[in-house]
């Protein structure tokens, strides 16, 4: 019988910060979203203080101070690197692994692998990376998710729970439908109206009725709860369908020049990602918007699209298209809060059909790869396109960011010898 394990990093962003800063251990820690807007990660101590996910930082400033909450800006370079380390540690012990998100992975287990294997896995990730993880084991991915949740909710289990080693009904009866993977709040409310409140209720529900009411997705969840695996392990990452970059400005911006600088920077970033993934983009969308949370000021939002034929991964081409899209949608007299770019209809770079007489732009691609290499080596945006601007006054606020300990030579952890 196949069994799945879900390995989930505990409070991942906070845990990453704690690896490099012992002063954050055993105290409440929160990590804020881009632009220091709202809480996106909380340590257990912060959860106990009642701090909610998504809580706006500025409204809670006093409360944070009163309770000695350590507040950090998000440091995605660090989290990305630590995530890669966690995943490759898992790979040393498991052959089949699906990286499900930055802090979660599904594993398919061998027959002999159970709780003690999960404990070894957990210990190794902790030792090699410093990151604490929880492991849930189930007959299906849905059940593995629930087992993981159970392990997290019950500290005496020490981070591991094997739902296949116990009679599951008693546990499923204590998990609400809303907490099942794939069941949203609306669906949970719909189920509650007919008396289906817990995972056990849903497991016992009439499958054809579920299919009629919730469609094939709901049916699949019900089957998975019954131990019938319907969602296989996806070991190969599904090729990216879109790459996007959008941020809020540190403060509101009116001039097209400032927006253009921000947009060009985002485009340079997505173009780098495109090339790193060996992809070409066929379409681009650019948008601008004012601040919807300031209804007293005039509101405007707009987007525009462009198609590339042939598909491209070249920054200059992408930036000049992006700027002309921006010019089409920009209206003076508004206080803009956000701009962004999305590249869609991505295709693998080696599948381009270069038309017979088209000149391959070898020089251009070579220049591009040199620029990418320098930026990787010397830090993002060392070599930048003129349209990205030099001052970057629109830049996002990240006042409390920790060092990029694992990705920048000049930001290494400094350790005193005395």
């Amino acid at each position, binding site marked *: 019988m196949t069994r799945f394990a879900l390995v989930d990093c505990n409070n991942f962003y906070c845990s990453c910060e704690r690896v490099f800063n012992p002063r954050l251990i055993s105290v409440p820690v929160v990590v804020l979203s881009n632009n220091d807007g709202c809480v996106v990660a909380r340590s257990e101590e912060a959860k106990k203080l009642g701090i909610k996910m998504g809580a706006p930082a500025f409204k809670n400033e006093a409360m944070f101070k009163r309770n000695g909450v350590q507040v950090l800006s998000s440091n*995605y370079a660090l989290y990305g690197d630590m995530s890669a380390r966690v995943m490759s540690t898992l790979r040393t012990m498991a052959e089949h692994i699906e990286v499900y998100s930055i802090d979660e992975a599904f594993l398919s287990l061998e027959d002999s692998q159970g709780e003690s294997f999960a404990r070894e896995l957990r210990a190794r990730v902790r030792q090699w990376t*410093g990151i604490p993880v929880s492991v849930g084991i189930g007959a299906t991915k849905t059940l593995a998710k629930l087992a993981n949740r159970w392990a997290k909710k019950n500290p005496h289990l020490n981070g591991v729970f094997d739902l296949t080693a116990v009679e599951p009904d008693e546990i499923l009866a204590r998990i609400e439908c809303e907490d099942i993977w794939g069941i949203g709040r609306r669906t949970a409310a719909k189920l509650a109206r007919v008396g289906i409140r817990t995972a056990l209720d849903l497991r016992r529900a009439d499958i054809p009725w579920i299919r009629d009411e919730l469609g094939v997705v709901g049916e699949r969840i019900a089957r998975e709860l019954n131990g019938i695996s319907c969602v296989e392990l996806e070991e190969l990452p599904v090729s990216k369908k879109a790459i996007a970059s959008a941020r809020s400005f540190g403060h509101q911006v009116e001039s097209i020049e400032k927006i253009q600088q921000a947009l060009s920077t985002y485009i340079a970033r997505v173009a780098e990602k495109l090339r*790193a993934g060996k992809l070409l983009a066929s379409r681009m969308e650019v948008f601008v918007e004012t601040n919807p949370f300031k209804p007293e000021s005039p509101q405007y939002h707009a987007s525009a699209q462009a198609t590339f034929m042939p598909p491209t991964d070249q920054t200059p081409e992408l930036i000049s298209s992006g700027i002309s899209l921006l010019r089409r949608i920009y209206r003076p007299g508004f206080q803009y809060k956000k701009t962004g770019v999305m590249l869609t209809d991505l295709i693998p770079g080696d599948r381009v059909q270069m038309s017979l007489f088209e000149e391959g732009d070898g020089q251009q691609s070579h220049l591009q790869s040199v620029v990418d290499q320098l930026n990787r080596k010397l830090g993002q945006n060392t070599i930048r396109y003129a349209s990205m601007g030099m001052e970057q006054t629109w830049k996002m606020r990240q006042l409390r960011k920790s060092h990029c300990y694992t990705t920048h030579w000049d930001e290494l952890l400094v350790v005193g010898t005395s």
Partner: protein
Amino acid sequence: MIVDPPVPLERRTSRPIPLFATVPAGFPSPADDYVEKSIDLNEQLVRNPTSTFFVRARGDSMRDAGIASGDILVVDKAVTAADKQIVVAMLDGEFTVKRLRRRNNRVFLESGNQDFPPREITPDQDLVIWGVVTFVIHQPK
């Protein structure tokens, strides 16, 4: 919020040299059979890329153990610290680099400098070994 999916770990950053020389005239180079991959320092310094971190040392108390202020330490978290190894440790909420000594169930942190006496770790102190220093990268003056 945009979160990139994690990228596969590839920490080896050797400078590639061409494995096959181009020979315009068509005569094979006599060296072709002997071309090897160039030496990669990471192979020597980083045994386990997943668990290896670089940190910078500050201070003189490990001078006689070969660690000068400003040196880069290669630290492997996967290695379980044994007696006499140099470790990066968290002691009561502060990072430090010291030589670990275990004698008759007692634990000491030793400096590499005569001016600093060894320090015994008492049971009420909080000591966590963060990783073992496997190499020291030092730039001579």
